[in-house]
């Protein structure tokens, strides 16, 4: 079974109001993303994808190349604007000025929730490691704690992607505190 199928198998029945930490190795990154994109077919939830590892455009293009449709996924792109203010061509992408504007990520998640007809959302954070490059772990902890619990209270689900090769003890501790479940895929 490849990584995308494993991700789908592990996460397709994810419970409402829960938080799952998905730990992957770098080599299976795009396979894991493919599995996450396919969650939209398995769930009646709105999928919100917070992209801070690679720009949303790059993810959408990569998915198109392997025949995965991501039109129904709402992206919050935290890095494109930072890189010379580039804006993409897709309607399903919202941009944030910088990955340091963590409050704005929460605000955009709430905005998309208000706009959606779906009763609940699955919010995917890609990834905790890249957000940690730009943010102190204390503010990261506060951000994740508030976001995860806010989503919990609304019956929504959080999936927090982390990359094994970039893991730090602080991030591990943080994920242990806020995750109900840890899923490891791809040689980790």
């Amino acid at each position: 079974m490849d990584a995308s199928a494993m991700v789908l198998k592990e996460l397709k029945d994810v419970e409402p109001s829960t938080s799952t930490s998905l730990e992957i190795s770098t080599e299976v990154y795009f396979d894991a993303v493919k599995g996450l994109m396919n969650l939209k077919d398995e769930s009646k939830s709105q999928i919100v994808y917070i992209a801070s590892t690679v720009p949303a455009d790059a993810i959408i293009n990569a998915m198109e190349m392997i025949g995965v449709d991501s039109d129904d996924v709402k992206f919050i792109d935290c890095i494109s604007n930072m890189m010379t203010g580039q804006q993409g061509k897709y309607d399903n992408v919202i941009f944030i000025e910088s990955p340091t504007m963590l409050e704005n990520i929460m605000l955009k998640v709430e905005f998309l929730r208000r706009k959606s007809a779906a009763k609940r959302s699955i919010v995917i954070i890609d990834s905790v490691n890249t957000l940690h490059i730009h943010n102190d772990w204390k503010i990261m902890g506060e951000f994740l704690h508030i976001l995860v619990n806010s989503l919990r209270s609304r019956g929504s689900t959080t999936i927090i992607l982390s990359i094994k090769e970039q893991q730090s003890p602080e991030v591990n501790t943080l994920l242990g505190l806020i995750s109900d479940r840890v899923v490891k895929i791809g040689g980790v």
Partner: protein
Amino acid sequence: MSSAKEEHKRPSTRILSIGREKCITGIEGLDSVLGGGIPRNNTVLLTGNCGTGKTSLSLEFLLHGALEGENGLYLSVTEPFEKLIANMIPYDFFTKELIKTGKLTFIDMSAIYERFGFNRDRMSIEDVDLLVSAIGDLTRETKARRLVIDSITSVAYQVDSQEKLRNLLIGLSKALSGLGATSLIISELTAADTSYSKYGVEEAIADGVILMGNLERNGDMLRTLQVIKMRGTSHSRAKYVLDLTTAGILLVPLLKGGS
């Protein structure tokens, strides 16, 4: 296609309301901060620097009220009505029917000045009383339960003493409260101002003070909101970050990062 009225969901039904009857602003995060809304008949100073969202918040306050059947009156000193509407955020829940049906009324204050022949450079104490009376009449005529004055700072430019300004604010507060209106009085601050209002007396007389600001953090600029005081309710005094969106104003707590 659903109508603006259908799309407008009363968001505050789950908020526990304590104390006096509340005027639900309809801005979910703000109602939560205020323990259910602004206590009815309060006169609230909405204060802050330019570009912090004061006009948007006050417009949304009136819009939600109008959609719930409460008439709203917007008195503008700074901007003509057409420009105000043209620059308004295209809210999902706004419809021009609210204006056509009289649920929302916009009045340019210069029309009031002309009607009463006020000397625009310097108001006498009698002019101040007349102005209070005129605003009261307009509130009564439009059956407004929610009122916005944008801005008291601009009105105060024509009032040449703190005593007159005090009279104006106390008169307004009494008149509007007596008419059952909950009011937002906008006050403009500059970066150099150290109090919550331009002349110092506004914040003391108002029943509530909501401070809106710009916070710079490591080069990022965030819009913030903080309820400094609000008589008649138990409220949070924490600082929140806000976003002005077509779905309305959204609030989240300001992250402190262990500081």
